[in-house]
């Protein structure tokens, strides 16, 4: 599998937050989801990948090149969708398009018209007068209209209604059908990724917690629920974000195979959702090993 994006030991320091040794890859022909709670470092990582923010340490290679080597060529091949509208608000969609389209050698006017129609966007309306969802749709139309090989999206579904969210996910799946493109997609709405992502990278508090195939990630974790007596100190160490009540406990088992045989019949092992993995892992970091309800 060819890596379109390779991030190695990326570090960025701010006064109140830092990215620490971020390593991730985005593979050609696949959708990679980038999950994490608010403030985890998703947008900062994406900004470093887009060269909007300069890394203090580490390397970002896209299509085998760094931004220092050939940022123009790299960005020609990327469709970028930001978490909030970053177009000229006082100009219409058409005026914005006229200013931005000439920067792209592969701009496809017919494709743009297709997306404008498909997303039901009013060409002559000012960007400032659009709803958040419409702004995101316009951002998508702009990002997709130059046939990018890599689509990077920072929280694209956050302002969208459920109907368009599904449409967008279908659209992304269509885009990667030719196996020549890749999508890197950050969100905290993990259900979206559950439907479409092939790979998941999970970041929390500026550090990568997991980065692997979605199915493998879901397979190796389990939500465990059972009586308190079962929860020995040794078993507790294998669980994340344990919550104890008077009658029992629940927590996330991070290496399911390590409890093989021990759990049979005594505790309930449930397949977790990405949200479960995110929730228990963040809880573990915030509250220590366990909480008492």
């Amino acid at each position: 599998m060819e890596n379109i994006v390779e991030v190695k030991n990326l570090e960025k320091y701010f006064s109140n937050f830092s990215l620490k040794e971020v390593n991730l890859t985005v593979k050609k022909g696949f959708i990679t989801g980038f999950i994490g709670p608010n403030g985890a470092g998703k947008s900062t990582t994406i900004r470093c990948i887009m060269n909007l923010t300069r890394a203090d340490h580490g390397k970002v290679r896209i299509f085998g090149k760094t931004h220092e080597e050939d940022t123009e060529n790299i960005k020609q091949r990327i469709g970028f969708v930001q978490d909030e509208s970053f177009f000229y608000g006082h100009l219409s969609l058409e005026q914005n398009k006229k200013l931005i389209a000439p920067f792209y050698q592969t701009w496809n006017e017919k494709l743009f018209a297709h997306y404008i129609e498909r997303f039901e966007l009013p060409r002559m309306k000012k960007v400032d007068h659009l709803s958040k969802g419409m702004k995101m749709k316009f951002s998508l139309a702009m990002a997709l209209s130059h046939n990018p090989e890599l689509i990077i999206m920072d929280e694209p579904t956050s302002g969208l209604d459920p109907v368009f969210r599904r449409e967008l996910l279908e659209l992304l799946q269509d885009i990667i059908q030719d196996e020549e493109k890749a999508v890197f997609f950050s969100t905290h709405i993990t259900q979206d990724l559950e439907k479409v992502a092939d790979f998941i990278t999970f970041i929390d508090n500026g550090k990568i917690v997991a980065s692997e195939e979605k199915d493998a990630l879901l397979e190796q974790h389990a939500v465990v629920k059972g009586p308190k007596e079962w929860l020995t100190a040794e078993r507790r160490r294998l669980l994340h974000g344990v919550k104890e009540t008077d009658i029992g406990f629940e927590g996330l088992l991070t290496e399911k195979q390590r409890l093989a045989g021990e759990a049979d019949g005594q505790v309930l092992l449930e397949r977790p959702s990405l949200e479960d993995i995110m929730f228990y892992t963040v809880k573990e970091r915030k509250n220590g090993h366990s909480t008492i309800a």
Partner: protein
Amino acid sequence: MVIQLLRNEMFSQKAYNYVLAFSSFIPFTGFFTSGVPIRHILLIIVLSSWVPLIAPYYERDALLNSLPVTRKKIVTAKYLAPLMWSIPATVIVFIYVFLFVTYAPFPARLITGWDLLLALAGLYLLISFFYPLLISLGYIAATTLTAITGGAIMIGVQMVINIYHNPSMTSLDSTVENIIANPNAFILLFAGITLIITLLSYALSVKLYERKDF
């Protein structure tokens, strides 16, 4: 790509900025009663620098930097923009001065090449001060400091003129008389110094902009 960036600056402005730019005709031409060449030079500087000074307020840095263009080209476009705006500004002021010379009952002369050189030098001195401040301190601080400095320079020039006209103060007489006797040499010297300052300012701006986070 630099052309596209210049085009971006031209068409991303709010229309009223152009109207406001034209309003500067009123103070700089003394309500259309002054034919003094220095006022016309100042008018060219103000008209040429108006959009480059206002544009950063509307600029979308994250958008510009996500486009397939290097940061150096973005800065290059910033430094070329005043030159681009000086063309229509000069044409407009030239037409005004021509009409003034032809029809107004006041003594006046047409704009010369030396006037234009002086205007360009003044324009780039202003811009060379503004852009590094803009990149390092932001829009509000940069415009405030530039306005204060511009005002201080104009007051300084007026003070020199006042001192020259004051018979009891003779310390600046020989300097001012030298300039009056050889105005073109002074303009050339001023333009040369401005060119060096502009190149240094450009290099500094590129360095600052390449380190900036958006």
